[in-house]
């Protein structure tokens, strides 16, 4: 089956990101195709490239990057939710005159239309709320 995940919680604030990452790994382990994880609302903090958790704690941002690298899972971040929380890629930083950026590939800024597409195209869309 083709799966997608909608994640609404920031890492380390609630359990949502941890649950979503474990679920994503289990979906793949059972032989399904995980098309994308869509990060919305506070979930956009999962894409923070400057996040530096202690080394002996779960590395949630790295977990998403690993999923993309190993299983070609798209990591789609709502642009409107991200920019207002300081999650911004190089192109948007230049457009808005910011000194730095905090979102890097493989995460991509995208619109809510992508979430609608995932809901329509995938067999299952699972939400992890906070």
């Amino acid at each position, binding site marked *: 089956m083709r799966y997608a995940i909608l994640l609404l919680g920031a890492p380390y604030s*609630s359990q949502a990101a941890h*649950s979503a990452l474990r679920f994503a790994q289990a979906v793949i382990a*059972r032989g399904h195709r995980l098309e994308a994880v869509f990060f919305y609302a506070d979930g956009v903090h999962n894409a923070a490239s400057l996040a530096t958790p202690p080394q002996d704690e779960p590395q949630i941002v790295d977990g998403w990057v690993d999923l993309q690298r190993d299983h070609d899972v798209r990591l789609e971040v709502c642009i409107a939710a991200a920019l207002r929380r300081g999650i911004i890629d190089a192109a948007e930083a230049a457009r808005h005159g910011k000194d730095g950026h905090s979102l890097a590939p493989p995460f991509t800024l995208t619109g809510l239309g992508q979430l609608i597409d995932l809901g329509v195209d995938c067999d299952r869309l699972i939400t992890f*709320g906070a």
Partner: protein
Amino acid sequence: MILHTLNRSPLDSSVYLQALAAMTEADCLLLIEDGVLGCLPAQAGRWPQLTGRLFALREDLASRGLVDACSDSITVIDIQEFVALTEQATKVVSWY
């Protein structure tokens, strides 16, 4: 069958009442995260008529030290079985 997930404890959120109100007799309810506090025997009365359709996630019970405290009326499943439930369900509705 629609699978409903609940991640809030029934002790500090009333969202479980909305979940129950939305469920049909064919639907299943999976308690995850703080929702597993609903597994305590003292909370069993909150889940009437859900026999055989009420599940809890083992990893979230274990991380709270509640595996052995879980009510007998609840089926404990692991994350792989969570995915299996989403395969069987036509839709998944998350309550949080």
